[in-house]
């Protein structure tokens, strides 16, 4: 299973689409690694600089409908090659969420209240998250203060994450 713990990147906006996560002009790459420098290059978000803000982060916290738009699995891959394997949001676009699980990555849904609470308590601070996939909880910590939150993933998503992806599973079963 992948690592889901580490420093948090806060993206305080809803409806961040896959063109913003990885622009189409980079879809001509045949390796995942080649996507690394371009993550969130076209993100429209005041104060955000992908060149400075992505480095060293291991998790994303955002608002609603993350990953809407294109079906490109390059979006999760661009996160993955930057060692970001978990995104917390109120909800995800269907294809993006499925792509995350198919890659063994975690698209964790939280209530709007909890996402608001995380932004209020930790937004703008150097924050670290620790994920417990069995309990479906995430502990956020900053400047000595910690708080636990529940998240939701389907049994299907959890099984795929634990199995390490859909191809091996399906190849054996069908």
């Amino acid at each position: 299973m992948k690592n889901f713990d580490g420093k948090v990147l806060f993206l305080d906006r809803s409806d961040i689409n896959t063109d913003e996560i990885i622009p189409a002009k980079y879809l001509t790459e045949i390796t995942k690694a080649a996507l690394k420098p371009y993550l969130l290059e076209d993100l429209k978000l005041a104060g955000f600089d992908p060149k400075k803000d992505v480095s060293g982060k291991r998790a994303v916290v955002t608002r609603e409908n993350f990953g809407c738009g294109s079906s490109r699995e390059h979006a999760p891959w661009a996160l993955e090659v930057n060692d970001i394997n978990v995104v917390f949001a109120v909800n995800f676009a269907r294809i993006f969420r499925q792509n995350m699980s198919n890659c063994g990555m975690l698209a964790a849904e939280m209530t709007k209240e909890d996402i608001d609470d995380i932004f209020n308590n930790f937004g703008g601070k150097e924050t670290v998250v620790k994920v417990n996939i069995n309990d479906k909880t995430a502990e956020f910590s900053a400047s000595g203060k910690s708080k636990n939150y529940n998240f939701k993933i389907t049994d299907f998503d959890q099984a795929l994450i634990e199995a390490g992806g859909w191809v091996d599973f399906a190849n054996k079963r069908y």
Partner: protein
Amino acid sequence: MGKTIAEKIFDAHLVDEPFEGAYALKLDAVFCHEITTPIAIEDLKARGIDKVFDPNKIKAVIDHVTPAKDSKTAEQGKIMREWARRHNIKDFFDIGNNGVCHAIFPEKGFVRPGYTIIMGDSHTCTHGAFGAFAAGVGTTDLEVGILKGVCAFKYPKTIKFELTGSLRPGVYAKDVILNIIKEIGVNGATDCVMEFTGSVISDMSMESRMTLCNMAIEAGGTVGICYPDSKTVDYLWDFIKNDYKDKESAIKEYSKWVSDKDAEYEKIVKIDVSKIEPSVTFGYKPDQVKTVAEMKGTKVDQIYIGSCTNGRIEDLRIAAEVLKGNKISPSVRGILSPATPLIYRTAMKEGIIDIFMEAGFCVTNPTCGACLGMSNGVLAEGEVCISTTNRNFNGRMGKGGMVHLASPATAAASAITGEITNSKLYKGGEK
């Protein structure tokens, strides 16, 4: 309790439930293009399982960047070509025969009512216009589809859109779907099937239904779906005439792919289309929609007519009606990309290409290129394009560019004036 059309298609294709809440469906077709398929092919090769579940059910095209613009896109095309040859995939459309996937696959008769289809492309929702369950997926789902002919989904929830009234002249399916997205928002149908019903849909051509269903994903919808009817049968007749003794028996057979009256819906949205004016997007999200009248006078640098949304013959005919006898403004660039070779040739025979060229348009080969800023019409920083495509995301047609989504009539009228303008075909008055 009755069932929706999507539930009926699920029940008819269910293989098993690998996990609680996940339904693995048998696929009737897997569509492929050169942007999302090569990585799946390479991964299958690396795993030592370079196989396809059924070469007759895989349909492939090179459409996003064609002809290749550089070594990387040439390589993507090469991987597709060699793969299609290796596996004897007969329905593979390469240069000379290729067109935008969601236009050429229906045109070739590959979509039928009740089908399950996946493709590594979010606008696969277009094919729901035929009463099919057709969904965009990522490369991993595509890979499993190619290998095993199955794909897993959650059981479908459906939002029903009851469209009443009649469209004013000069108002089109594009204006309807923009207004639906405006009403429910870009997250309004996430994880839901969008079922379009009502006499407005019955009156719409298959081309218009495809335009409508094409943008379901822009509200988060898994697929946009219309019930099959006589128009569906007329469109498909050349491909199905040996299977049915007459059109009536085909319509009867397909009528099983209609929701029951007591089907359960997530939500029912009623929309009176008589109130809809020609519309256009204004921001970076497809739910940011205003009337053309409200946006009137906004200067544009480029006009793009084409794509899986509005690059079909009906769209070209409408735009030509607006352009005929006019020149485009000297301050703009006009680009037309007919979505398939057949559309291109039909437009030539009908004199439509001549009207576009006489007006000052550049006519490119069929390709997705400009819509996603890949080729054939990329915007420069600060440039504005009115486009018949489906996405106005930041950077979509080129870094720093602005895209206003509109119908072919509005795009053509705006080409003449150089600013966002209502077409002469619209006679409904402006609020």
